């Protein structure tokens, strides 16, 4: 267990990722394995091998998170499934959010992040969510509306994204 396990530190709610891929939960009856990008391939391979005869597994590999494809994969599962996600932080966060939206419980989700330099930012101004290279607390440019954003150091697990707001919003003009 323990995907996005802790709120740490001091009121900041940032994901705490395990350093090794989480292991397969043998109490599942079926498995949905999702891998994003080339770095996730070997993680998913290991998971698929460990699932072995525990139950049927569905493997979805893709270059990037695609909401329609992930939602369709989730919709085809039955209760008793365990969902395991590997890939860059932005793809993993968005996939975990979609899984929760489909009703997955924390015990049913496991994940592994292959790189943390990208994160999904929800722009408070144009309301688009895009992946950007940034760190929580840093600055990014919204790819949709070009506003320069403060990336707030708080992950919305429900949205799978960080909030971005105009860096100049407090200045009077």
């Amino acid at each position, binding site marked *: 267990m323990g995907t996005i396990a802790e709120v740490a530190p001091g009121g900041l709610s940032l994901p705490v990722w395990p350093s090794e891929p989480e292991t397969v939960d043998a109490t599942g009856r079926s498995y949905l394995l999702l891998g994003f990008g080339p770095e996730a391939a070997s993680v998913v391979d290991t998971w698929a091998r460990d699932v072995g005869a525990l139950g049927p597994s569905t493997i979805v590999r893709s270059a990037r998170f695609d909401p329609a494809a992930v939602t369709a994969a989730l919709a085809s599962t039955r209760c008793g499934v365990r969902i395991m996600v590997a890939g860059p932080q932005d793809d993993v966060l968005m996939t975990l959010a979609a899984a929760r939206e489909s*009703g997955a419980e924390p015990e049913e989700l496991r994940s592994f992040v292959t790189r943390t330099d990208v994160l999904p930012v929800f722009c408070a101004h144009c309301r688009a969510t895009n992946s950007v290279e940034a760190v929580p607390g840093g600055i990014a440019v919204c790819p949709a509306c070009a506003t320069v954003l403060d990336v707030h150091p708080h992950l919305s697990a429900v949205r799978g994204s960080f909030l971005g707001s105009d860096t100049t919003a407090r200045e009077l003009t």
Partner: protein
Amino acid sequence: MIAATHQHPAYRVGSREFVVAAAEPVTPEVRHLVLMPRDGGPVAPYQAGSHVVVDTAAGRNAYSLTGDGSTPDRYEISVLRCRDGGGSAWIHDELAPGSVVTIEGPRAMFAPRYDQRHALLVAGGIGITPILSHARYLARWGGTAEIIYSYRPGAAAHLNEIRDAGFPVHEATTVARTRELLAERFADQPLGTHAYACGPAAMLETYRELGLAAGWPESRLHLERFQLADLDPGEPFTATVRSTGARVAVAAGTSLLDALSEAGVAVASMCRQGVCGECRVGVASAASLDHRDAVLTPAERDAADSIMCCVSRGTDVEVDL
């Protein structure tokens, strides 16, 4: 209970008199009561699966409400006559239209999860009452469900109502068929389903066992017990009352609750079966605790700072009273 003096009277859940407006048999052993508030005022809405506590001549008994819970103007319960006499016999034999009863509640201990995507509802015998409430609630608010109802032929309360609730109903009249149905339906529910079961202890054990075997985490397997398996008398032990230092001997076969009340330390109780949580007392220290209730979670048991004194025991228990 928090005294909410500023709240509208429609939210009153304290002790209150109700008049029996109707009392009809729905099976030879089950009587359905319609209760109207004696003061004519509004009655509190409730979450599906809630119960009220009825003051009977033989003690306070909890009964599930059968309605959907939204904007009620009455409370309805269905009561099975239990073999041991007691409160249910009093309800069957002594109450008639026009009788006045005191009830408390509603209280929710078996509520639907607000974020469920679908429900698997499982009833055994009179356990149909909170399940009917869940089904009506889902029908009213556009949810989806599938229902398993296990009953003895000729003894099924609310069979027509549950068939008419608008969801598929799988019926079973044998233990073997109930087991089969549970295994089959647990294996084929969409992600995000929550299961709710009420029925005899043995059926609930099967439900849990098959749910876990189907890969469902505990957090999806909700249940309401109305009886626990018979408990052994246990070993004698001594309890100390923290505030007074009084030492109370608890004999084998006597509950801590009874021993305390005999020693003049009153503790509120209701089900006296380790099901309702009413008799929870704090534990300041104990050499060991033997939790035998169905209320505390594993984490609460590990914390070792409270017990349900109607069933649970221990050694050298200092109670926070």
